């Protein structure tokens, strides 16, 4: 069966909460039923049919033809199937995602993969600040799954991350992996200042170095670790070039000693 496609009629005039349009929630619904579903907005009431032309198909394979930076919460809470967006998305794409695959062929706003628990999220363009991070008041960020950002990522990527893997193939902003509890953050491009700020445990690769390292990280020498080759095998299907770079000796910095100091940054 072909994909269930939503073609954007025109650039939306308000922010849209697209969390209801996931395989979990659309499976078994008819085209007419989907068209009458209400979308939460900031101003006028809208139904799915007002916003998109719908081409019926298998709800396990959803495709948005056309995106917008006003598309918020795309794929939020999804646990299965695949969503592909041909365009940009707004805030919180894949928030609380539990499984399945979310592909954004464009740029993503802040809090992409916020508190994600499982599945695969791929952003082909840039991702804004706090990839995987918690919203205000939440104590834990990303808890599982894998995020791949092909372009650059904003500040505080992987904030308060607990588990899972984030790969950024481009540059990353300041304080990447801030307050990390555990998990793995692989940053291929240059990283802004203070990566791993107040990190407790976890692993950060700053493959092309950072603007400034906190003095609360201590140098533990160069090591070629088995754990890094296991990580390389794990990410090879998602990002083979980055994976290949992991299989060599890396300088290992332990920290952040301002807290419990059980994290590590691999740095040139």
């Amino acid at each position: 069966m072909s994909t269930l496609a939503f073609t954007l009629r025109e650039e939306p005039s308000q922010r849209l909460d697209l969390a209801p349009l996931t395989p979990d929630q659309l499976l078994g619904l008819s085209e007419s039923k989907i068209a009458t579903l209400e979308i939460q907005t900031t101003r006028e009431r809208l139904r799915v049919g007002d916003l998109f032309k719908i081409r019926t198909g298998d709800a396990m394979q959803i495709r948005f033809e056309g995106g917008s930076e006003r598309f918020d919460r795309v794929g939020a809470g999804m646990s299965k199937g695949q969503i592909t967006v041909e365009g940009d998305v707004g805030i919180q794409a894949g928030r609380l995602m539990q499984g399945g695959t979310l592909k954004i062929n464009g740029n993503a706003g802040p809090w992409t993969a916020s508190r994600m628990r499982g599945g695969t999220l791929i952003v082909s363009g840039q991702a804004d600040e706090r990839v995987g991070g918690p919203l205000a008041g939440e104590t834990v960020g990303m808890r599982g799954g894998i995020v791949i950002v092909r372009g650059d990522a904003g500040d505080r990527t992987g904030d308060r991350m607990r588990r899972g893997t984030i790969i950024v193939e481009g540059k990353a902003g300041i304080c990447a992996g801030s307050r990390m509890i555990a998990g793995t953050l692989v940053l291929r491009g240059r990283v802004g200042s203070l990566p791993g700020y107040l990190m407790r445990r976890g692993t950060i690769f700053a493959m092309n170095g950072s603007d400034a390292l906190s003095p609360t990280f201590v140098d533990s020498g160069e090591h070629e670790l088995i754990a890094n080759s296991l990580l390389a095998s794990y990410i090879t299907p998602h990002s083979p070039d980055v994976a290949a770079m992991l299989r060599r000796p890396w300088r290992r910095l332990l920290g952040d000693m301002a807290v419990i100091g059980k994290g590590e940054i691999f740095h040139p």
Partner: protein
Amino acid sequence: MSQLTVNGIGVDDTFAEAFGMRATALTITAHSALWAHQAAVTMTGFATSVIGCGCEAGIDRVLSPAETPDGRPGVRVLLFAVSTSELQKQLQNRVGQCILTSPGSACYAGLETDERLKLGNALRFFGDGWQVSKRLGDRRYWRIPVMDGEFVCDATTGLCKTAVGGGNIIVMGATAEKTLAATERAVEAIATVPDVILPFPGGIVRSGSKVGSKYEGVIASTNDAYCPTLKGTGRSALGDDIESVLEIVIDGLTSAAVAEAMKAGVRAILALGPERGALRIGAGNYGGKLGSHHYYLKDLLP
């Protein structure tokens, strides 16, 4: 005992009797094949029989770098015990004392089943707080700092509750040399069968046992019916032509694997022929009432 004759070798019309066991498997890797092998040999040492060793263990096969999780040379070992708790205890002690200690080693689950045994989850405390857990997809690893770097270990490994222990072949020949030659051929042939191990030295046991003893409290004693020096005492199962007897004991993850191994062994002995090898092949059983798996020799012939 009634016999068939195949290629000039007598095959007893009998069966091997084997028992249900608990088993697990590990993949051991190191910087070189030599050191992976060393860790595996040490870990499976003193593991010939559950009677005195707590478990039976051995090398299943050598793994190429492409077959191991970390891309280094490896060895797959199997471990068998009579209960899950004993298997867990043996696994923990042996990995902790023999693999953790071996230079450059790492240790991974060698079996994927829903029921799990603790691996790194039991050893991590050696890290004294410096141990690090790393979860990649479905797998969780423990990284324990050691003096040559880090010991990496899967958190758990699979438990197989339907394993089989005690498949066997009794090899009888005219001289010690010829009997050993035939038995060695069988061991070589069985080495190519996956999911089985031969726990005894070099895969061969020369002191086969029977259940019980004339002495109180001794649970197993020499298999006097098959001792050539006791021919003529009335209980001997050996004819005048037999001067040496050796046994191969086989443990496997499945009954089919044990049958396949016995088949490979029997056929290798038959192929060697009576001039250079054995004169007779038998199998050990306890009348069929103790073990739940019976392997008839006549079903294994070419």
